[in-house]
């Protein structure tokens, strides 16, 4: 293990490490802490120039209350949820299947198709903007969650397939051969043998895609408008204009918008790290 495990170092080094750790964390998260601090301040603090000090009064409930009850935030949050969850499911499902096909079978064009997915994934997505917008409009899906979901699924499939395929490659191939010899149909091999073994990868990908999609701003702006379909990243700009320079409310809104992927990450972090280890950095 590198660097040398701290428990093998002198006591003094251990203590200073333990002490430095929270300090470093605070420095690292300073901007966020500041925002959290903003979000519980009363408006008066900003008028009085008390930007960075302690809140003069604790206004968390009223600030967050206004976020939830006096704006479209809840709708945007729901939109985000209804966009993100189907996308995660769709992208993970499609890429698990594609990854299985590319990772397990030898056929002509395997590598070509695989590389196509990778290349497509690394394309600067702005190049897709105009055609995808037109396509979405033609499909009558403009300003619908479905329109966003379909595009996100398609675009994320590239990245997910890369990840899944590498993960499946790292599985012991004899497992699949054993099942074949046992007379298990191919799709059942996928369902009963491969899929259960991919759980860590599925979890890791789910978290990653969740954050990617939840945080998407660009496509939200290009493909949707208004609280009918727009996710929270785009909604927050509306929110911000609604509350102009009301930093306390903007902060509260930002924190509300950021919370779900954070929660998701914390829930899944064990699988996340395990899956990443195997899939990305094999």
């Amino acid at each position: 293990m590198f660097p040398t495990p701290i428990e093998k170092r002198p006591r003094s080094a251990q203590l200073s490490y333990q002490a430095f750790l929270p300090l470093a964390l605070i420095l690292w998260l300073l901007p966020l802490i500041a925002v959290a601090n903003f979000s519980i301040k009363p408006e008066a603090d900003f008028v009085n120039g008390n930007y960075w000090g302690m809140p003069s009064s604790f206004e968390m409930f009223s600030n967050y209350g206004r976020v939830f009850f006096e704006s479209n935030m809840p709708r945007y949050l729901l939109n985000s949820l209804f966009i993100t969850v189907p996308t995660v499911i769709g992208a993970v499902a499609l890429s698990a299947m594609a990854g299985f096909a590319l990772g397990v079978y030898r056929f002509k064009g395997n590598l070509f198709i695989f590389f196509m997915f990778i290349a497509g994934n690394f394309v600067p997505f702005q190049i897709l903007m105009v055609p995808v917008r037109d396509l979405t409009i033609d499909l009558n899906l403009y300003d619908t969650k479905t329109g966003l979901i379909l595009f996100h699924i398609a675009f994320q499939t590239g990245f997910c397939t890369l990840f899944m395929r590498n993960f499946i490659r790292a599985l012991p191939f004899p497992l699949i051969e054993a099942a074949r010899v046992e007379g298990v149909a191919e799709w059942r091999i996928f369902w009963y043998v491969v899929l259960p073994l991919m759980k860590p990868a599925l979890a890791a990908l789910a978290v990653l895609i969740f954050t990617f999609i939840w945080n998407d701003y660009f496509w939200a702006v290009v493909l949707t408008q208004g609280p009918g379909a727009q996710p929270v990243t785009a909604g927050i700009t509306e929110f911000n204009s609604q509350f102009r320079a009301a930093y306390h409310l903007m902060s509260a809104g930002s924190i509300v918008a950021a919370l779900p992927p954070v929660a998701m990450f914390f829930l899944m972090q064990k699988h996340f790290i395990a899956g990443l280890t195997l899939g990305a950095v094999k």
Partner: protein
Amino acid sequence: MSGVTLNKVVKRYGNVQVIHGVDLKIEDGEFCVFVGPSGCGKSTLMRMVAGLEETTEGRIEIGDRDVTRMDPAERGVAMVFQTYALYPHMTVEENMGFGLKMTGHPKAEIKSKVAEASRILKLDPFLARKPAALSGGQRQRVAIGRAIVRGPEVFLFDEPLSNLDAELRVEMRVEIARLHNDIGATMIYVTHDQVEAMTLADKIVVLRLGRIEQVGAPLDLYRDPDNKFVAGFIGSPAMNFLDAVVTADGKVEVPALKTSVAVPVTLPAAGTKVILGIRPEHVDVTEGDALSIELTEALGGVSYDYIQADTGERLIVEERGDHRAAPGTRVSLSFDPGRAYLFDADTEARIR
């Protein structure tokens, strides 16, 4: 009838040919072991029988059925992999029953078959465990159990014991032998291990570079190898080979031993270069000055002398009992010429 017949079987990967027209007949119920150096095509050949590799040319029959183009599932074979290939997310019981479940057998039948197999392999206490909670030997048994459950006509084993440590290897080897005695199915077994091959096989197939060098019962190969390759490959420690030359008086002169011996075979013309082979266990060390002991290894019951001839050639001599000669001692060697083998120096074919 469920013997296995290979008929001019060829395997090519792209332009690289790795199996060169193999003909082989394995009888019903026979235990057939493939041996050969690494990369000679043992696994490939076995996987062709299983259907995991396509057969480029030739025919493979199991029993009376031509299975050459069949899917693995339909061939009635079961395979035990070197790495066991157990499904890590299933319990032992599920692992063993998985194939039957997937092919739509009723639950009760699966249960009884799994119970039967686990009884044979003494796996009952572990049925509810996952593979991760088993030792290497137990895992190997589960892998075998999974094969048994399906009642295949042919069992295929690809180096099933090579991931076990020495002690367990011995134990499992004996168990496989018992299993073969009990169920009497046809078995094909790939191994690197001399001892496994010698002790398990009814028939050993020695492969080299994708071709069969010799087929026969273990002791037949040991006693009567067709060529230098087989002679050197079967037996441990390996046979000693010494350059020799046929003399005019019908003997064979061995410079390394500084002597000539009368090997009772039909000798070629005088002056022909030959190779003399003699097994370490058939040589005795006597007093003398022909060669020098380089190193001695005493294992307790047996010891090996590593001996260097003045020609630079090296030999190993096995000695019973526990003695340890000092390195550097000069010795001579003696052996029964009837136990020596002669090979053509060019073709390496046995001279009989």
